[in-house]
C-alpha cells in the first residue's frame, strides 16, 4: 500500500509539468517590446524576436551567424495580448515575453495614456515585473526598426547596457522596472518616470577606407548632448539616453508631461537617493574661462520634512564627496584655498541644478522624486493623507537644500617647481 501510494504521488507530481509543455525550439523569444498608438486598432505592438543561432558568439568573439540576429515584427491589436496573437500568426513559432527585457513606449502613446501596458503585467504570468521600461522619441516601431547595436549582437543586451551604464556610472538616466512604474502610478506619493531614448542619424564621423567595420572615437551625435553617447560610423543610427520622461497620473490616465535633460535627471536621481555616480561642470575659481569636471564619488540625500497644517517644508540634506577630474589647459593651482573654492563653486552649481530641477518638476506637477513618500510619514492615517491631496499640494511645497560637498582631491598634491 505504501509503495502504491508513493507511486501515485510521484506520478502525480512528475506529470504536473507535462501540462502545457512547450519546447524551447517552438518558441519565439521577444527580447524587446515596443508599444505605440495604433491607426486602426488602439495599440500597435512591435516585437523584436531573437534568433538565438545568430546571437550565439563565435570562436572569434563576434556574432555567431550570418544576417541580423533579430527579426522585428509589428501588428496592431485591441490589446497587447491581441496584437501578440496576431504576431503569432506570422511566425512559425509561438511568441513569448518570458525573456523580454525592455518595454519601449512610443512618445505619442506615452503622452496620451501609458496605462494600457500595465494591466497585462499584473495579470499575465509571461510578463514579468522586472522588465525595464522606457519612452522613446517618435514611435517605438521606428525606434526598434532603426535600432542598430554597436557593440552587442543582441539589441536587448545593448539597450540594457546603455541605460545601465547611464544609470550606474553617469547618473544621466533612470533605470525603471515595470514594478516601479506600476507602484508609482498607483500610489498617491509619487509619479512615474522612465528613461527617455532618442535615435538620430550620425553625420560627422568619417571612416578611413578599409576600416569600415571599425568604430572610431571622437564623433558626437546630435542627440547625445550631455547624455550617454554611442559613437558610430557615418550613416548609422545612434541611440542616446536623453534624460528622463516624466509622467503624471490624473483621471485614471498616465500621461507623459515632459522630460528632464541628463543633468536634471542626475539631480532627480540624487533627490530620490539613487544616484551612485555623477558629475557636474564648473568654471574654475580664479580662471572662469576654464571649465572643469567635478566627479561625485559618494552621494547621499535625506529629505527632512516639517509639517505645519497644510504647510510642508522639505530640506534635503545632501552630502557629496567629489574630486576634480579634469580642467581645461595646464591649470595646476594647488592650495587648500583653491580646494575650498572649488568645493564652494561646485556646491553652488549643484544647488542651482537641484533647485532648477525641483522647480521644473513642480511646474509639471510630477513628483518623480518620491517627495510624497517622505511627506506622508508625517500623517497618521491614510484618510488624512488622502484629504491632504498631495498631487495638488506638491507644487506648493517649499524645498531647500543643505549641501555639504567635500572635494577630496583636485588631482595634484604639489605644484611643479618649474611650470611651463
Amino acid at each position: 500500500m505504501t509503495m502504491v501510494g508513493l507511486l501515485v504521488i510521484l506520478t502525480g507530481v512528475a506529470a504536473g509539468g507535462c501540462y502545457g509543455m512547450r519546447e524551447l525550439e517552438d518558441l519565439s523569444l521577444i527580447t524587446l517590446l515596443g508599444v505605440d498608438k495604433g491607426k486602426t486598432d488602439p495599440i500597435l505592438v512591435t516585437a523584436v524576436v531573437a534568433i538565438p543561432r545568430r546571437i550565439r558568439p563565435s570562436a572569434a568573439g563576434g556574432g555567431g551567424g550570418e544576417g541580423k540576429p533579430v527579426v522585428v515584427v509589428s501588428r496592431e491589436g485591441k490589446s497587447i495580448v491581441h496584437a501578440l496573437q496576431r504576431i503569432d500568426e506570422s511566425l512559425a513559432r509561438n511568441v513569448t515575453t518570458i525573456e523580454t527585457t525592455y518595454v519601449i513606449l512610443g512618445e505619442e502613446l506615452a503622452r496620451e495614456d501609458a496605462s494600457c501596458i500595465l494591466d497585462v503585467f499584473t495579470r499575465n504570468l509571461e510578463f514579468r515585473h522586472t522588465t525595464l521600461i522606457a519612452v522613446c522619441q517618435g514611435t517605438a516601431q521606428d525606434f526598434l526598426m532603426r535600432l542598430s547595436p554597436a557593440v552587442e549582437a543582441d539589441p536587448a543586451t545593448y539597450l540594457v547596457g546603455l541605460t545601465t551604464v547611464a544609470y550606474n556610472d553617469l547618473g544621466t538616466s533612470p533605470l525603471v522596472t515595470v514594478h516601479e512604474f506600476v507602484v508609482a502610478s498607483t500610489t498617491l506619493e509619487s509619479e512615474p518616470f522612465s528613461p527617455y531614448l532618442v535615435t538620430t542619424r550620425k553625420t560627422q564621423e568619417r571612416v578611413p577606407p578599409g576600416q569600415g567595420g571599425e568604430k572610431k572615437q571622437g564623433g558626437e551625435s546630435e542627440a547625445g548632448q550631455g547624455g550617454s553617447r554611442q559613437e558610430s560610423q557615418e550613416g548609422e543610427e545612434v541611440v542616446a539616453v536623453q534624460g528622463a520622461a516624466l509622467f503624471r497620473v490624473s483621471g485614471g490616465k498616465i500621461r507623459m508631461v515632459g522630460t528632464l535633460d541628463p543633468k536634471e535627471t542626475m539631480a532627480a536621481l540624487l533627490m530620490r537617493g539613487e544616484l551612485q555616480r555623477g558629475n557636474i561642470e564648473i568654471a574654475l575659481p580664479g580662471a572662469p574661462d576654464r571649465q572643469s569636471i567635478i566627479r561625485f564619488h559618494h552621494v547621499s540625500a535625506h529629505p527632512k520634512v516639517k509639517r505645519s497644517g497644510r504647510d510642508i517644508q522639505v530640506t534635503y540634506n545632501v552630502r557629496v564627496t567629489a574630486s576634480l577630474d579634469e580642467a581645461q589647459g595646464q591649470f595646476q593651482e594647488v592650495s587648500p584655498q583653491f580646494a575650498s573654492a572649488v568645493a564652494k563653486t561646485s556646491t553652488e552649481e549643484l544647488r542651482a541644478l537641484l533647485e532648477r530641477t525641483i522647480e521644473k518638476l513642480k511646474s509639471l506637477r510630477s513628483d518623480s522624486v518620491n517627495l510624497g513618500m517622505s511627506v506622508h510619514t508625517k500623517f497618521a492615517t491614510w484618510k488624512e493623507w488622502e484629504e491632504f491631496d498631495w498631487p495638488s499640494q506638491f507644487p506648493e511645497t517649499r524645498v531647500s537644500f543643505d549641501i555639504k560637498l567635500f572635494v577630496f582631491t583636485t588631482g595634484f598634491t604639489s605644484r611643479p617647481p618649474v611650470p611651463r
Partner: protein
Amino acid sequence: MLLYLTASTAFLAFPALIMTKAGNAAWLSMALSAGFGYIGLWGWIRWSDTTANKAFVPALRETLGRFSGDFVGLMVFTYLLSSTSLLARVFSGGTIIGLLPEVPIEILQGTLIIVSAFGAWLGLEPVARTGVVLAPVVTLSLTVVLLASYRLVDIRHVFPFWGLGPLAVLKQGLRGAGIFANISALVILKAYMRNPRLSRAAGIWGMSLGAFFMILTTLVVAAAFPYPESTRQLFPLGVLARSIILGKFLQRLEALFSFSWFFSIAVNLAVAYVLSLIVFSQLSDTQTVRPYVFPMSSLTFGLGLLPPSLIHAVAWLDAIYSWGGNSVLWLGWALYCISRVTNGKQSRRTGANGGTVRRRGGKHPGDQGNWPTGAVPDSDTGGDAP
C-alpha cells in the same frame, strides 16, 4: 507542525486581504492578531491543564457533558475540514496563477490532497518527521524571498503609520486572530506526545515562530507594494519571488520557492487531516482512523471545488478563518471557565479540595483518555489504532 499550521497562510492571499482592511498598517493588525492568538492559546493551555492527559473529545465530554461535548467537537471538526478543503483549493489556484497556468486545478488539488491524505494515512509521526525535515527548506526559501526582495522594499511605504486608522487596525487585528486558531491543535495532539509536559513550550514556540513569519511577511509585502497597489496582488509572495534576480545564470528561481511552499502546504494539510481524523474517530468512538482517510480526502476534494471561482474560495476561506477561526481560538477560554465552574460545583458536592478533575481512563468505551502515547497508526507494523 504547529508552525506549519499557523504560518502557511503567509503564502496565500492573506497579506493582500489584510491590507484591504487595514491599509499599509496590515503588519500592525497581524501583530495584534498574534497577540490575540497568544491569549487564545493560553486559554487552551489552561483548559488543557484541567483535563490531565485526556484526549480531546473525552476531555470535551468531561467538561461539557456528552451531548454538548460532542457538539463542540463536531464544530471543531467542521472547522478543520472546511478550512483544509478551501486551503487546498486556494493554494492550488495560486500555483496555477503563479507557476503552472495550464495545469487543470483538479489535477493540482487532487495531487495535493493525495500527498497530504497519504501522509495522514501513515500516521502522526511520519507527518511530524516530514515536517521537521522540510522545515529548514521552507524557512530558507521564505527567508531568501524576503531578503532578496530588498530591491523592491522601501520602508516609507508602510506609512502613514496607522494605515486606514487605529479602529480599522484593531478590528482587523481581532478578526484576523482566527488565522492562529489552528494553534488549538496543541490540545488535540497533547495526548499523543511522548512528553506532554512539553506541550506548553511547543505551543508557545509554534505560535511565536508562526507569528514572526506572518508579521514579517506582511511587513515586507507592505513595504514592497504600497497601498493600494498591495491590495491588487492576489499572491504577493509569489510576485516577490518572481522579482528575484540572482544573476543571468540563475533564472526562474520562483519555481524552486513555490515548490517548497507546496511542501509546506502539503504538510499543513497532512497535519490538518490527522487532526480531523483524530477528532472524528474520537467522536465516533472508534479506535481507528484509517477507514476515514479515503472518505475524508474525497470530501475535502469535493468541498474545495465548491466555490465557483478562486475569488470565492479566498473569500470563503477568509470568512472561515474570521468567524470559525475566532470561535475556535476563544473556545479554549470558554472551556476553561466552564470547567472551573463545573469543578467548583463538584468540589462543593464531594467536599474535596482543588478544582482539577484528575479522572483517568473512561467508563465509556469511547473515552479514549488513556490512549497510549504513540498509538497513532504505525506504518511499519501496519497498526490501525489511531
